């Protein structure tokens, strides 16, 4: 066994250790530990990715002395290690970009708790990506939920407490449905490891046994994870949670947390239930319809939003609609597009949140549009970053968003006849709506006329961390847009490793 194969396990456990030893530290010490561990995890995940590319196959890793199906197991393929790399880089950028605000927004004696929560959140994200065992996935979904709540409410303003409560209620309903489906799945298959459940389910499907529980399992699991990731009618926690948490939390939550649940759902579709059974059960059509509705309604709400953070949050609702629409196409091309959009959204949404914070600082910390007039001239870097993020979300070539939209459109054309027309029409309409709300904001921040008098002479000089984070995220955006072919090939190979 190659030493590299230990890296997924090491990165999960190291994050937990970092959280644990941050407890007695002061804020500064906890910050150093966290930054070190997050960078280390990014490096380890990248090495794992290279190793899998080099050997050409994924591997499973026995967690302890006993092989599957008796013990726990991790599974690393191309897709898992690619997402782990991107996720840890985005966490690193979000932390660096909002570091000064973490220390001002949060009470001094609680700063180290913030870093504990980030460490544990990252460990749960990695474990959800790598796990090959449904119950382990549930345990880490719990850690993910609780630490997300902590990240929202640690700012201790009234709105963030309400947002955390809302998030918790929605998220616990989702967890409950997911747990019920796991319990029933164990009841009918007698296994918790993904591959073994898959074998049992194929037998059940062939013999026609337990068809009703299977249908309930599929629907509960899908609905539970869809609620947790904020698919359209279950999105009401998003605007407040993203708008009132400290900015690093907003960036991490919007770009990573809901994506990890979507990835878990994709993994369950492929490795646990089997994609043919999922297509037969028609649950993808439900996801497809809600995805389409989300794409439109999220954008409509974003147009109506009166402040910049709510606009970005509602734009997240629309983008999650895109991802579910891609899953709902029920073809491999649609799935590739969905995973690519997960990456696109992860690097773009954190960029947008960090740059919106820069604009907000240049406008006396006001978040409503009239105060933001001409803000891009007061904080040029944030303005440029917001412009690039917006263009990427709208789908301008050379940026990541263009590639995802292209992939969605080609997947729709190659897919089933009945879904092609609705997909293309909604994609068009949603793109136009995206353009309206993003460019309306861009035009406003680049209009010097009528800028509020009191902020006219404000010049914001971003901290080195903010500059580094914004530049890194912009580069990742261009990277995804310009080198899309190798990345889509990678994703396709990763999805084929699932089957």
């Amino acid at each position, binding site marked *: 066994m190659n030493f590299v194969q230990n890296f997924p396990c090491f990165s999960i456990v190291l994050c937990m250790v970092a959280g644990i030893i941050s407890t007695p530290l002061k804020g500064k010490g906890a910050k150093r530990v966290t930054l070190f561990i997050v960078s280390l995890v990014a490096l380890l995940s990248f090495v794992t990715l290279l190793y899998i590319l080099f050997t050409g196959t994924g591997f499973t890793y*026995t967690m302890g*002395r006993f092989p599957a199906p008796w*013990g726990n197991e991790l599974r690393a393929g191309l897709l898992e290690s690619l997402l782990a790399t991107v996720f840890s880089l985005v966490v690193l950028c979000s932390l660096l970009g909002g570091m000064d605000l973490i220390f001002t927004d949060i009470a001094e004696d609680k700063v180290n708790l913030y870093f504990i929560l980030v460490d544990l959140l990252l460990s749960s994200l990695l474990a959800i990506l790598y796990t090959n065992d449904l119950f382990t996935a549930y345990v880490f979904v719990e*850690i993910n939920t609780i630490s997300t709540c902590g990240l929202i409410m640690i700012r201790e303003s009234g709105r963030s407490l309400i947002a955390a409560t809302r998030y918790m209620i929605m998220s616990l309903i989702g967890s409950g449905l997911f747990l019920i489906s796991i319990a029933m799945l164990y009841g009918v298959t007698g296994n918790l490891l993904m591959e073994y459940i898959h074998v049992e389910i194929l037998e059940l499907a062939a013999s026609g046994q337990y*068809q*009703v529980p299977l249908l309930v399992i599929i629907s509960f699991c899908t609905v539970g994870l869809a609620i947790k990731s904020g698919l359209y009618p279950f999105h009401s926690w998003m605007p407040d949670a993203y708008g009132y948490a400290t900015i690093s939390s907003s960036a991490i939550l919007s770009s990573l947390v809901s994506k990890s649940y979507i990835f878990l759902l994709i993994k369950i579709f492929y490795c646990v239930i089997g994609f043919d059974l999922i297509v037969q059960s028609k649950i993808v059509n439900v996801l497809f319809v809600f995805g389409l509705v989300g794409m439109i309604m999220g954008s409509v709400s974003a147009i*109506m939003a009166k402040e910049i953070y709510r606009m970005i949050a509602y734009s997240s609702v629309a983008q999650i609609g895109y991802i579910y629409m891609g899953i709902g196409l029920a073809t491999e091309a649609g799935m590739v597009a969905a995973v690519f959009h997960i990456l696109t959204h992860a690097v773009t949404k954190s960029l947008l949140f960090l740059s919106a914070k820069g604009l907000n600082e240049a406008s006396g910390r006001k978040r409503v549009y009239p105060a933001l007039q001409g803000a891009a001239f007061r904080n040029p870097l944030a303005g440029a970053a917001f412009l690039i993020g917006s263009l990427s979300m709208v789908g301008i070539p050379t940026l990541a968003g263009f590639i995802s939209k292209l992939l969605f459109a080609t997947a729709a054309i190659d897919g089933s006849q009945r879904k092609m027309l609705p997909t293309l029409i909604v994609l068009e309409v949603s793109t136009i709506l995206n353009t309206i709300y993003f460019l309306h904001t861009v035009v406003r921040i680049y209009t010097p006329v009528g800028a509020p008098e009191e902020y006219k002479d404000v010049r914001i000089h971003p901290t080195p961390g903010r500059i580094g984070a914004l530049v890194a995220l912009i580069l990742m955006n261009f990277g995804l847009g310009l080198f899309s072919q190798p990345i889509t090939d990678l994703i396709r190979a990763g999805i084929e490793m699932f089957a």
Partner: protein
Amino acid sequence: MSRVRDNYENSRFRRLLRWINGETDPLEGKMEMKPLREEELKGESVYDPDRIDRARVERYLDDVERNTEMRAFRVVYRLGSVALCLLLIAALLYAVSWMPAVGDANAPANNEVSQRYVEQGLEEVGAVNMVTNMILSYRGFDTFGETCVLFVAATCVIVLLRRRRDDIEKAKETDWKYEPKPDAILQQVTKVLTPVIFLFGVYIILNGNLSPGGGFSGGAVIGAGLILYVTTFGFHRTQRFFNEKTYDCVKVGALTLYSITMIYYFYTGANGIASLFGTGTAGNILSAGMLLPINIFVGLEVACTMYCFFALFRRGGM
């Protein structure tokens, strides 16, 4: 030609959308939301939504006797939630009726997985208690995760409830003065009971690999003992042996040692390196390798977490 609305905010679609988005304002549609026109603003009375007497309006809104619209909405809302719950219950009951019966020998859950836990657990791991074998060794990663759930839950409660030091100093004047109630019977009973409870908790933890129990249950017993002590004798006396520093030391120490043990276990297990932990003689307390230390670590963490929850809810500090 359609009528041009000047208050699209109050249109039906906009209200529905706002309700779905969870932005509904309690003042919604109940009063004039349009800003006053320029000529209506006289002197200093600038329009300011915050100045509206919210309390009065909300009282009116909650007054279901008079507010028929609200009453109708509430009825529909409650009926809707009941219907949704009934639907879920029905779906689950129907699905369960198709599931294998409880105790069915041919149920899919009775397969080679549980068979190995039952038949070879003692030989492979070394603890007489096969549940301990399963949760701490076969599925050790899940249990490590669960312990971290406790850790992160305690962290969140601290985020939410821990008061600043000067707040606590202020609270001493009012809240602390009258606490604890000098109740002679309670104090005498606690004096007798607490050592027994602690001893019992330690017994459960140490015998985790021999008899029912283990870190989670033993830790809960110890935590309950601490809570009993603190409610009887107050925080001052408890702080002499258990304050925030001890709490941090115990918790961090236990969790760090636990994670080191687990890393060692995962690393040696996955790479096929012989472990230092033997299985020992079955039935001895010092057997089953790493299970005894893990039980102790888990027990300490659980006891700390329980006490932490109580102390933070009671007075916002340890």
